[in-house]
């Protein structure tokens, strides 16, 4: 089972990301959960959302405290929120930033793999808006092999209809452009 924690700000679509990911995973025969950090949320305030993906039925319903992967949608959260809290030592941290993975690794003193991608720039080019939630799914799929980008197609089409292809392109670009630490 892969457990993922997403960090974003209210309105950046972290919850949409976990919904899309869970729906797509279940659509291709896997089992998954997607859920927000329960409680009130405000636009702009730090939020978290969570994903579980497995090949067999998932029983556990408690929170995720030791994620395998952390995705940071907004790098301005680094320093405000302890994004590596509980992240497994051999886990993966994926950050939406123009910085190099080595810089982030040094900044956060994290021992596992760090990956970075300038998802906001990709989203601006491909979608015309600086909302990187779907783009970052591409980076997550590259780093985990949880699914193929094409596995997202049905769910993304259902959700975004006219702009589905643009979102899929953004995912694909993040998948290809992600930089991985040594």
């Amino acid at each position, binding site marked *: 089972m892969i457990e993922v924690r997403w960090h974003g700000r209210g309105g950046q679509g972290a919850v949409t990301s976990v919904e899309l990911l869970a729906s797509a995973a279940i659509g291709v025969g896997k089992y998954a959960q997607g*859920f927000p950090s329960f*409680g009130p949320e405000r636009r702009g305030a730090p939020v978290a959302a969570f994903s579980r993906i497995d090949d067999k039925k998932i029983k556990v*319903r408690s929170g995720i405290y030791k994620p395998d992967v952390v995705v940071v949608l907004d790098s301005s959260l680094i320093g405000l929120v302890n994004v590596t809290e509980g992240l497994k030592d051999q886990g993966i941290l994926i950050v939406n930033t123009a910085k190099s993975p080595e810089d982030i690794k040094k900044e956060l003193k994290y021992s596992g793999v760090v990956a970075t991608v300038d998802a906001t720039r990709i989203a601006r080019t491909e979608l015309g808006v600086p909302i990187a939630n779907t783009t970052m799914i591409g980076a997550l799929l590259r780093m985990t092999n949880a699914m193929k980008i094409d596995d997202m197609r049905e769910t993304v089409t259902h959700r975004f209809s006219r702009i589905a292809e643009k979102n899929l392109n953004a995912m694909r670009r993040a998948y290809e452009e992600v930089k991985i630490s040594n």
Partner: protein
Amino acid sequence: MAKRVGMEVAIAVAEAVGQCNIDMAAVYPITPQSHIGEHLSDLVADGRIDAEFITVESEHSAISAVIGASGTGARVYTATSSQGLMLMHEILPIASAMRLPIVMGIANRAVSGPLNILNDHSDTMPQRDSGWISIFVENGQEAIDMTIQSFKIAEHKDVNLPICVNIDGFQLTHMVESVEFPDQEMVNKFLPPREPFATLHPSKPLTMGAFAMADYFTEIMKAKNEALKNSKKVILAVWEEWARMFGRTYKPVEAYKTDGAETLVLTMGSMGETAEMAIDELRAEGLSVGLVKLRLWRPFPFAEIRDVLKNAKKVLVTDRAVSFGGPGGPVFSEIKSALYNERVRPAIYNYIIGLGGRDVPVTDFVSMIKKVVQDAGENADTYEFLGVRE
């Protein structure tokens, strides 16, 4: 087999209601129930189902409106949560006294104060003696299945009682997970149109919910109690039919690895599967432990509870609500009362857990169960608030 889809459970519940050929729904929004009402109103507005959706100004009006509509013979649905359920409280016993087969989804949430929007069972427990059938679901699939089953149970000619389906708020309502919907034609076959015992109609006047003083009131209360007790036969029959048609089996009390287990833990609601993981872990360590999951809260399944607990030495009952100044949690009281007349009884322990959304991970279940396994008996018949800071 139907295709599995990933869907938020609250949306899935509304979709399930949409499969039941309802005539009318009245729902007032409240977290964490709101997505049920919103999606149901979408289904009506988009013309996907042929029903009336009445927007009301409060939960008191929502329950009153479904009572009126149910009285005309309509198939009706409502849903609420926490303070909304508390506002409905005074009307709930009227619905059951009038023998109206209303189906209500409850997205279980803590009751204020202090204000809290997260999950526990403190909203549904004060409704216990309202004369409603009350069931608890454990996951999204059960939420779909039991919502559909509820119409059939409630409307059965030997039941004619309202029913509430308890769905843990957030832990279930806000979870996108794997569910499958039963085939619509099969649902139509399973759930034929309602055949009301009597209907309100201007051309054929009759009175429902009339005045009754001391000369009749006791008889009506006894009739309601008998009806609720008798509903169990129908519930069991409906679950059997469901298993035959849809392949998923439901029982009032579910047993998980209870065979030969010395210590049993009991849950009700969405923590059941998390507790299963703790049982698996402890069994792997060689501990003789098992899990009992209570699904039917009213009518209370006394015989099934006695049967599943009869060989246990210790029972750990978990509660998601407090009975202030009482003997422990409300489930604990019921289990003790069920066992009082047994000649051989297990030692019984009570943990009050997961109040106001406090998370209970597998590790907490493991340590709770271990503590009970290791107890020499001095803490039996007591209750404890899990993890409380003092």
